[in-house]
């Protein structure tokens, strides 16, 4: 099964840490990700630039409103996502518990939704619209 793992961190605390510590953390994270790749558990993922680089789009009063910054103003911000292939939720939990990134913030592990049936039903509806 696929699990989407969302890694949160406190960007201010991280940015104020000595550069050597930041690099050490990045090295350990990359090393662990490589290990996950070698085992076939890493199905994709990216680190995100800091939250101040975010642009939020919101549909409001019939148009899109664009604002600077992240959607939610909280201390802990999304720092990266990892798409994980694991046998079940406990396996995903075991893999993520060993991720060095857990030392700098909480991770949220959620199963990917299987939308194939919803997509199929939608296709049926859209075909009917055309006819």
């Amino acid at each position, binding site marked *: 099964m696929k699990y989407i793992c969302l890694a949160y961190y406190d960007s201010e605390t991280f940015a104020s840490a000595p550069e050597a510590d930041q690099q050490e953390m990045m090295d350990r994270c990359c090393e662990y990700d490589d*290990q996950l790749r070698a085992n*076939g558990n890493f199905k994709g993922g990216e680190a995100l630039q800091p939250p101040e680089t975010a642009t939020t789009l919101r549909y409001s009063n019939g148009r899109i409103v664009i604002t600077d910054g992240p959607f939610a103003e909280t201390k802990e911000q999304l720092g990266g996502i990892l798409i994980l292939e694991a*046998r079940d939720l*406990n396996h995903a939990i*075991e893999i993520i518990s060993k991720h060095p990134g857990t030392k700098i913030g909480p991770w949220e592990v959620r*199963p990917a939704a299987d939308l194939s049936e919803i997509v199929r039903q939608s296709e049926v509806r859209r075909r009917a619209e055309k006819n």
Partner: protein
Amino acid sequence: MCAPPSFDIRTHLDAVYRAEAGRILSTLVRLLGDFNLAEDAMQEAFNAALHRWPAEGLPAKPRAWLISAGRFKAIDSIRRRVRLDAAHQQIADELNNSLPTTDQLDELPDDRLKLIFTCCHPILAPDAQAALTLREVCGLTTEEIAHAFLSSAPTIAQRIVRAKAKIRDERIPYQVPSGAELPERLGAVLAIVYLLFNEGYSASSGPSLTRVELSTEAIRLGRILLELMPEPEVTGLVALMLLHESRRTARVSQEGELVLLEHQDRASWNYDHIRDGIALVERALATRRFGPYTLQAAIAAVHAEAPRSEATDWKQICALYAALLSMQPSPVVELNRAVAVAMRDGPTAGLVLIDDLIARGELQDYYLVHAARADLHRRLGNKDQARLAYTQAQALTKSEPEQRYFATRLRELG
């Protein structure tokens, strides 16, 4: 010997997992001496198989291949930790230098027993024992276990994580208990197997009367235990589960309603299960060291042997309940005996026993007491008392098919 191109390796590996995970894990725990390390190693071995089997072809002995791969993965993983903790170097070296023989890579009879006894250790709560056993011994996923228990996957996942942490922190020894400890510990294991079976068979809450997968897993687990430890009560429990299971389709109508034993279509019973069940009961009884599971199985066997409901040997059933009661006094057994006595001597004799039970303050909130009283009053023509008792039973059960069953009985009374 490459697999054909259409061969779906993932489906094949899932099947291998379900059939072999318990054996592979238990052997790896023996070889590595650590539950969590063994589980990681097994997962990595299955990952390796997913990548290598399509190219290299299926190994002749998939289980030995997976165990061997898991062992090497564990050595790798310990080596990676060495950088953080030099103490691991020695463990890795020892493992690497003591290359196991082919025999050691094979399962030893005790491996899976140790795993079962560890998962059912009394230090863990029964719901944790059940979840852990289903995942580690039966190879079910967290999500499948959650579905079977009508729970959420995060809830079950945390239960399993905490149970494993407890096994590690309390240093629960990975072994089959011996001597004086064995009977009690085996009793705890059998209780979990029977709990799983009943949860699947009577589904204590929710819309569906039976959840087949749990009962099937319980029987599979029971058969594994029987193969490894052919004790009389293990034999009796497997017989009991098979004899109940033989009536699974007959006890629910096409409309999803509960059908009582006396009204079941006996032609739709599973006579393969009945034959196996009866043979096991006889084997257990012959040891003369049997216990409550065997006696309950013997009662189920008497029912199974009756070609028609009217031909049931109630005299023998009453005698078996009396034996069960002397071995394991319990109000529920008393209730069952009262129903059997009513069949042997008439409804009034049964009512006397049930009313005595209630007068002693036993089982007042147990819906089946009221259901049994209602039925006996109905047979005596006491409509008002029957109506009152059916209403009490209906209010006390959480199972929707059972609630509908009592509603139907109430309508019939007018």
